[in-house]
């Protein structure tokens, strides 16, 4: 094809075509590198540093290639980090002399099978089963992490001796005869193939078309489901390769392998010029993005050399030391980087920000920006499903089954009886009941805010992390700042609410998809929480603060109230204030959502935002309030958590986002918005709490031994429940597969439906 013709038509090649973006990235990297070299010349100043950077970024680069295909398809794959871990652990289990002790080839073969299976599973969930990509792959991420921890038991598997027998494979992670690491060759090959496939082949064109406009691509005869599944498999296989590279380099695997990798990889792809809204992606850009993200990762992790003055025996000595950022800083910064990178496309590129600034500086007329239009310019499709309105026609028990929260209520009852059957001696007793209630309280408080967010059609993935942030802030205020309990509580709640506000600003104010903004917060809030407490033992403060996590009886005792006897005394001895507090908030939240105008506005916004806008509802305000409310609820849960444990634990609230989203969905919420009630969510939270309690129940076997499931496997199980709940919501509640199945079997009602469909 002739270049001149293209030039003649378009005048000048657009900046994108000649790689202006990539040039900019290279420039930015050079600046960062020079900055790093100035801060720490002993590390960044050497060629080893460049080598190490290229080596460490190789794995990110390989995964970024796969991720580019997924993101160009308008999908997202959060599971790559744990896929890397799972593959590493799988290889190690198969290869390690202490486990199956097989050769390298069978180990690689099994890893490829697993990698393909994970990709296929992601792809099928997202395409045929219509689960939103972020929910499906986030769950896969957490399941994968649980599997890694469960299989390794949190330890490393190392086999340096056996590795020597298989030089050819483990050499892949080493330096070669030409003096650089083989992983660099691997990544360059993968990037080359990826760039060629995406830019020059039908596969690539199909991918970009699917991401640009799936419906149009479908009409044009592109099998879009297959294109999307293919991208997931590519991404998963790239993660598999990265896992094998990790194993080759380390001659083993740690249980932490791949943690945070998904964040770095997604940030890399977005920085590399891909659009989170699909249809745009550049493999070479993604590789540069991976280099940049890896460089940033390194700069953040490397210390700055400082001179510290130490007093020894009255003499002041100068000691060389390095000042490093605490562990939490890295996820915090990279989470922020992700969110800002996503903003580049809509705000800098689409709105021609740079051109406008340049035009203003040179005094020329700024280029025109396309009118984005306000309300009612785009279509306001009446969304909804074709499921018959059973609630109106059903009678008796059918009426109950037609309720969206029927599943949660039935499950709650069934699970409780299962527990009773397993441990009749203990399950129904007052102590166990209230222990369950206590676990329930934290989750229930989280679900209150989240129900609003989900009913509004948004999502908040950050609730668990915000819980930790609020908890660590309160603990820090008490212990380090020495504030009084009331101020500490207030500060903790404010910190969490602020996180909710930031979520709201990015989603509502700047128009980011809620899952991206809150995913950024998921990493940022937990990072900052870890950062705050870094190196401090946050425990042992004044008791009055802890009262908000105590039982009523304890509080009465604290205030020297004489103990109450009888049944009332028993109950006071086991009921916690936080449970009472939760009940009060739940009633308010439930009444507001069900009976007030604001509640109606929430449902209308979630059901059809444009229609609601057109009807004069300030949907931005509604969404903003719900996001802040969710942060506020998470913050309350965090402060209570710290008071209950009398200390702050950095893993507080981990996996809680999974629990909370699952609770809302089981309780009748829809991941697509417009549904969900407080009663349903509370029942859903009860289901999740009971599942956890059941899984952790000590079951006494026939031989008198007791057995209980480890925590990691419980989390894996909950992840499975979340996916099943979302599937039930999409296919049973919304698409009514049960109804059409019944129709197909019994053949009746068809006539009735025909009349209705006139």
């Amino acid at each position, binding site marked *: 094809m002739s270049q001149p013709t293209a030039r003649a038509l378009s005048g000048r090649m657009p900046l994108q075509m000649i790689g202006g973006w990539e040039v900019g990235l290279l420039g930015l990297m050079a600046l960062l590198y020079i900055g790093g070299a100035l801060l720490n010349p002993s590390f960044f100043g050497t060629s080893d540093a460049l080598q190490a950077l290229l080596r460490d970024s190789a794995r990110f680069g390989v995964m970024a290639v796969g991720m580019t295909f997924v993101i160009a398809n308008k999908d997202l794959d959060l599971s790559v980090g744990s896929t890397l871990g799972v593959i590493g652990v799988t290889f190690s289990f198969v290869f390690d002399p202490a486990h199956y002790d097989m050769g390298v080839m069978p180990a690689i073969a099994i890893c490829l099978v697993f990698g393909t299976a994970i990709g296929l599973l992601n792809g099928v969930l997202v395409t045929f089963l219509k689960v939103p990509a972020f929910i499906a792959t986030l769950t896969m991420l957490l399941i994968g992490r649980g599997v890694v921890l469960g299989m390794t038991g949190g330890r490393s598997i190392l086999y340096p001796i056996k590795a020597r027998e298989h030089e050819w494979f483990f050499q892949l992670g080493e330096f070669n005869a030409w003096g650089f690491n083989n992983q660099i060759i691997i990544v360059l090959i993968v990037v080359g193939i990826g760039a060629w496939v995406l830019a020059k082949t039908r596969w690539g064109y199909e991918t970009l078309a699917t991401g640009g406009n799936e419906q149009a691509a479908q009409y044009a005869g592109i099998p879009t489901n297959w294109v999307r599944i293919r991208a997931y498999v590519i991404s998963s296989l790239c993660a598999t390769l990265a896992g094998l590279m990790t194993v080759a380099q380390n001659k083993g695997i740690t249980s932490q392998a791949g943690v945070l990798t998904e964040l770095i990889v997604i940030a890399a792809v977005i920085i590399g010029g891909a659009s989170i809204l699909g249809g745009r992606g550049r493999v070479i850009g993604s590789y540069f993005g991976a280099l940049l993200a890896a460089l940033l990762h390194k700069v953040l992790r490397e210390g700055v050399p400082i001179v510290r003055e130490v007093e020894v025996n009255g003499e002041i000595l100068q000691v060389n030391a390095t000042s490093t950022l605490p562990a939490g800083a890295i996820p915090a910064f990279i989470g922020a980087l992700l969110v800002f990178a996503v903003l580049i496309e809509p705000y800098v590129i689409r709105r021609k920000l740079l051109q406008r600034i340049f035009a203003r500086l040179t005094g020329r007329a700024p280029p025109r920006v396309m009118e984005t239009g306000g309300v009612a*310019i785009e279509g*306001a499709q*009446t969304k909804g499903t*074709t499921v018959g309105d059973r*609630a109106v026609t059903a009678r008796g028990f059918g009426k109950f089954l037609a309720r969206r929260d029927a599943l949660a209520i039935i499950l709650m009852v069934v699970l409780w009886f299962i527990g009773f059957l397993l441990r009749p001696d203990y399950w129904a007793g007052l102590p166990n009941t209230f222990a369950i209630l206590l676990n329930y309280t934290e989750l229930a408080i989280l679900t209150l805010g989240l129900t609003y967010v989900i009913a509004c059609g948004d999502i908040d993935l950050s609730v668990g992390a915000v819980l930790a942030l609020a908890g660590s802030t309160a603990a820090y205020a008490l212990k380090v700042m020495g504030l009084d309990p009331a101020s500490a509580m207030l500060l903790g709640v404010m910190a969490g609410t602020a996180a909710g506000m930031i979520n709201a600003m990015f989603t509502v104010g700047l128009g980011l998809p809620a899952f991206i903004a809150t995913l950024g917060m998921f990493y940022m809030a937990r990072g900052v929480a870890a950062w705050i407490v870094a190196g401090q033992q946050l425990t042992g403060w004044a008791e009055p603060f802890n009262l908000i996590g105590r039982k009523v009886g304890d509080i009465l005792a604290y205030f020297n109230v004489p103990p109450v006897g009888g049944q009332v005394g028993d109950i006071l001895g086991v009921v916690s204030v936080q449970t009472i507090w939760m009940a009060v908030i739940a009633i308010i939240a439930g009444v507001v959502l069900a009976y007030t105008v604001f509640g109606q506005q929430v449902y*209308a916004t979630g059901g059809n935002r444009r*229609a609601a806008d057109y*009807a004069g509802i300030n949907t931005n305000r509604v969404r903003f309030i719900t996001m802040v409310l969710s942060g506020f609820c998470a913050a309350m849960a965090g402060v209570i958590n710290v008071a209950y444990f009398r200390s702050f634990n950095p893993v507080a609230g981990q996996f809680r986002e999974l629990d909370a989203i699952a609770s809302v969905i089981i309780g009748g919420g829809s991941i697509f918005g417009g549904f969900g009630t407080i009663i349903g969510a509370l029942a859903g939270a009860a289901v999740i709490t009971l599942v956890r309690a059941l899984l952790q129940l000590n079951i006494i076997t026939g031989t008198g031994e007791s057995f209980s499931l480890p925590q990691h496997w419980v989390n894996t199980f909950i992840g499975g429940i979340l996916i099943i709940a979302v599937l039930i919501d999409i296919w049973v509640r919304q698409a009514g597969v049960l109804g059409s199945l019944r129709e197909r079997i019994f053949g009746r009602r068809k006539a009735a439906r025909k009349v209705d469909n*006139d």
Partner: protein
Amino acid sequence: MTDKATQTPLVEMRNIHKSFGAVNALVNVNLSIAPGEILGLVGDNSAGKSTLMKILTGAYHRDEGEVLVEGKPTHFRSPHESRDVGIEMIYQDFALCGNLDVGQNIFLGRWPRKGLFVDRKRMYSEASEVLQRLKVDVNSVYQKVESLSGGRQQSVAIARAISFEPKLIILDEPTANLSVMATERLLETMAELKAQGVAQIIISHRLTDIFEVGDRVMVLKRGENVGDRYIKHTGEHEVLEMIVAGTPETAQTADEALAGKSSVPA
């Protein structure tokens, strides 16, 4: 017909210009509609029908020209402002919330309240009143809109529009997604509204529907007026010819065309 010319039109749009970048979407377009009149707005795709209506409702802002409502100049900045003076638009896809029921949708965004809470009793009783006034059959005001058929969803959208007591209703491709039966019912509803004195503008590709209920038909082509005729004095053939081959030079207003026609045989 002479009294119509002297009477103040309900809405008058004069010399409307609108461009999107280099594309001139509307050039010097005029439109007027009398109270209780049904005007069909026809033209090819990209003729500017929807743009013109969005300018009328305030969803788009005109570059030049005037919009007069009952003789008073207006500058709507959003559809909410045009609603306040009695202009309602019903979108092709109805703009309803499928997850809410019929009553909630009719009062979308202005649910009656009693103290802090939504007054459900009043909402549902008033909703069924509106539906009765429209003479449409929706089984129950408690039914979720997503479970209704397309025709019934549209009835809800119209009922919602009526409940604002509008003077003008704009229907965007109202029959596009409807079956023959539902179209018949819709046309009856439109006649009923006309009897109640509500003016209507129908954007449609289906000339048959416009010829069945309309009073007048206006043709746009590439953003320009190419003709305007009274339904009584024209035929589908003439309108089709204007859609395909009309030019602004040969465009006449309905009254000019009528005068021309009556003068020829005389």
